[in-house]
């Protein structure tokens, strides 16, 4: 009995009971489609997140107060007061010294806190950042209209604000033609001088909903800190993407000297864009594995369906098996016959499942696009390969027991079976 023959016979046998074969195949189709689409969604999420992080610029570094061990995540160290010395404007000055830190292009200190924006009865709670004019270049901000905070605003501690497009939408219901309006932040009047261009998700989530005011104004009136020159976070731009690691080392050295910390007991954390990328890749990787795992369970259930139907088939065809044995079929011939059938079931299911999974991924991408979310599920060759191999393996594995059961039948008994 050759494989080609076994294949043809299996095809005939399966097509002899189309409804049953179809339902069994359906189990595998759902399993494989789930695996394919879940992996695609996971990969797509990873690509879109890392993509948006990269779009911010990979030469960006963040410096927080608190040791790396005490950081719960990006920005988490802000409140971890204890004995850690806070970062100060003087720290920022020191870091921007081109001789001490040649890899640093510019530094933008900031303090951040929550506040309520209001205009004409509309209220919205959001993040208020007190920033310096450098912030715009360091973060690569673009203005949709108006201007960004400049040195004059800083010196005069002026009550001016630059809004993210979402923040403008929330309180004005639009994000154009709002320059010159006066809004209230924590009940103090602020004049809108600019609106930023939307840029979607960032390292800290979307920054489109934030409001930016001059550092000095924030320090004096809105976000008071214990000392006048205390800052929450330093945004540092490295000269190039390649010099980020070097810049990180330089910053660390300067801060260690200034804070007089013993080696290995830093009271600050330097986080790079690459660190964020890695963190998010780890998170989305786990997410993908998790989704794929759940989908894999449905594939397993499909496999049990195959085993079930093969066992029924063996019982039903006991006489046929007896006859085949009487005519000279060896153990191996019967095993091959039934294994071919079960593998064929799962293979057909696998192929249809791949097509379905691809369609589902495509549909998810379309829905995301319709909702203005830049998110494209990615059906990877590795996922297709994985699903194919896994489904074939499922067919083989769950076919082994029924096939052996068939092959182990005694011809005399099997022929007598009614």
């Amino acid at each position, binding site marked *: 009995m050759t494989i080609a023959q076994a294949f043809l016979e299996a095809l005939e046998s399966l097509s002899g009971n189309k409804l049953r074969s179809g339902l069994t195949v359906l189990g595998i189709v759902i399993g494989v489609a789930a695996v394919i689409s879940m992996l695609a969604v996971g990969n797509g999420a990873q690509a879109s997140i890392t993509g948006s992080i990269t779009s911010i610029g990979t030469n960006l570094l963040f410096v927080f107060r608190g040791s790396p061990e005490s950081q719960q995540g990006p920005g988490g160290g802000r409140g971890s007061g204890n004995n850690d010395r806070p970062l100060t404007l003087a720290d920022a000055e020191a870091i921007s010294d081109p001789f001490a830190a040649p890899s640093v292009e510019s530094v933008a200190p900031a303090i951040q806190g929550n506040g309520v924006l209001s205009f004409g009865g509309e209220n919205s709670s959001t993040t208020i950042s007190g920033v310096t004019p450098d912030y715009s270049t360091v973060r690569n901000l673009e203005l949709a209209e108006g201007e960004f905070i400049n040195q004059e605003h800083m010196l005069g501690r002026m009550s001016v604000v630059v809004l993210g497009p979402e923040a403008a939408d929330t309180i004005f219901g639009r994000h154009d033609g709002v320059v010159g309006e006066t809004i209230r932040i924590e009940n103090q009047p602020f004049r809108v001088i600019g609106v930023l261009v939307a840029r979607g998700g960032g390292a800290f989530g979307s920054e489109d909903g934030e409001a930016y005011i001059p550092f000095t104004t924030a320090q004096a009136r809105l976000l008071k800190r214990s000392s006048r020159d205390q800052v929450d976070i330093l945004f540092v731009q490295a000269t190039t993407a390649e010099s980020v690691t070097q810049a990180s080392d330089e910053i660390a050295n300067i801060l260690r000297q200034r804070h007089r910390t013993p080696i290995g007991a830093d009271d600050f954390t330097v986080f790079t864009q690459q660190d964020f990328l890695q963190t998010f890749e780890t998170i989305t990787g786990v997410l993908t594995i998790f989704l794929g795992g759940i989908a894999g369970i449905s594939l397993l259930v499909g496999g049990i369906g195959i085993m079930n139907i093969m066992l029924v088939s063996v019982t039903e065809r006991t006489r046929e098996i007896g006859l085949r044995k009487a*005519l000279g079929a060896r153990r191996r011939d019967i095993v091959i016959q039934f294994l071919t059938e079960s593998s064929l079931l799962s293979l057909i299911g696998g192929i249809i499942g791949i097509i379905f999974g691809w369609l589902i991924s495509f549909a998810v991408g379309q829905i995301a696009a319709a909702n203005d979310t830049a998110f494209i599920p990615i059906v990877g060759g590795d996922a297709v390969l994985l699903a194919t191999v896994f489904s074939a393996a499922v067919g083989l594995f769950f076919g082994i027991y029924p096939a052996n059961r068939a092959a182990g039948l005694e011809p005399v008994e099997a022929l007598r079976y009614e």
Partner: protein
Amino acid sequence: MDWVIEARDLKKIYKMGEVEVEALRGVSFTIQRGEVVAIMGPSGSGKSTLMNTLGCLDRPSFGEYVLDGEAVASLSDDQLADIRNRKVGFVFQSFNLLSRQTAITNVELPLRYSTHARYLGNRRGRREQAIQSLKAVGLEDRMTHRPTELSGGQQQRVAIARAIVNNPAIIMADEPTGNLDSKVGKEIMNLLLNLNKESGTTLIIVTHDPVIAEQTQRVIRLRDGLLDGAS
């Protein structure tokens, strides 16, 4: 003499739970090549057990059995399968055809399991042999019909074609006319006897029917697992 079957002191013991049942209690006989023999006996006499043993579907518990020069009493399952494939053609009372397959595919089935170089991977060779076999039973115009499209007599002819397709040493027919009316039964008997005459294949018929037994050259009678006045 040219013995195709030599059975010496065959015993078969079945264990049914705690109880041992002796279906064959020491049966010895020989059958010559080309002979037509009937095996008769009331139910429970060990007739089926003897047929299964002679057809290599089962091994005797004790004793020796030589089929066409090969001692088969102690062969493995796969070796027995090979012996059945090469040396035994079965004709069953209920035909036992694969209902979804055409006549020619049914006849081809033993060749698919053949390890003979002539048929291994040789589709055309198998098909030709199957056509020859169907011609020998007079069904050349029904080759692509399925069993459900054939009469009982025609189905049994297909089964006979399947039995002779691999030129076996013996044909084991178990009540071959049991499911047929007497007229068709007679035709099937004549076909079997003619095949025996033309090709000299040994024919062993297990039957209740004395009319059929009369047409054979010799009757082996069994009673309670022993030979009953064999002649």
